[in-house]
């Protein structure tokens, strides 16, 4: 019972934040709504017992990635959205397509009988996750670390002002 109430609470916050993201015109408001969504999702994760995931959701996703987003918005001095031409395809094909897809999946899901999950069903303690990361999933772990390194370098190169790049090339 409590499970259901908490789930609904967090769920409503999620959905509200998501819808707000769509409705707001200024990107900073959308970003802040997204932060709210992520926080609520962390709550959902806790309900399912994924402590580690919830933690890193708050620390990494909401705390680092969204902050990065907000930094960039402020850097670029983004203003309210302006009206522009848009695309017929996106509205006419994309949205109905997605609707059909989701409705179909929903229908399929409704046909099947999904079992219940209890609250805190799978306690994902940092110890357990860490063990798995460094034993069973070591290779992906290392590969993603390389990926992050590449991403850092790419971001630096792409975002740097053109003159500084030329400078470093001349000097290097």
């Amino acid at each position, binding site marked *: 019972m409590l499970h259901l109430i908490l789930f609904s609470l967090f769920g409503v916050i999620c959905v509200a934040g998501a819808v707000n993201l769509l409705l707001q015109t200024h990107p900073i408001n959308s970003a802040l709504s997204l932060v709210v969504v992520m926080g609520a999702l962390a709550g959902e994760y806790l309900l399912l017992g994924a402590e580690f995931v919830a933690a890193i959701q708050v620390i990494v996703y909401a705390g680092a990635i969204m902050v990065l987003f907000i930094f960039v918005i402020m850097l670029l001095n983004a203003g309210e959205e302006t009206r*522009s*031409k848009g695309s017929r395809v996106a509205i006419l094909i994309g949205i109905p397509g997605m609707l059909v897809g989701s409705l179909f999946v929903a229908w399929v899901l409704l046909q099947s009988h999904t079992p219940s999950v209890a609250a805190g069903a799978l306690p994902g303690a940092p110890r357990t996750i860490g063990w798995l990361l460094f034993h069973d999933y070591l290779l992906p772990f290392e590969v993603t670390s390389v990926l992050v390194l590449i991403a850092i370098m790419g*971001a630096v190169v792409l975002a740097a002002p053109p003159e500084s790049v030329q400078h470093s090339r001349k000097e290097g």
Partner: protein
Amino acid sequence: MPLLYYLILSGILFGCGVAGFLIKRNIITIFMSIELMLNAVNLSFVAFAAQWRAFSGQVFVFFVMVVAAAEAAVGLAIIIAVVRTRETLNVDDVNLLKL
């Protein structure tokens, strides 16, 4: 609590993400919709992990987050480069790749 509820929530979030991806005009907002989609998927993973008692679901969420971080970094760098050259954040004005 049936698993179904979690999946429906995940689906709704995903749908909102797609809708934002298609409707919004600001590049950064589009990017945020993508992040929303990724979050919805993460919720699905954790829910299924709870049902099947498999930790690999949660481990996978970890990886998704790492990749999302990398993607966000690079993507925002690209957006900065685009703004520097095109001086607009409106996605409809970034239309030089056409026949």
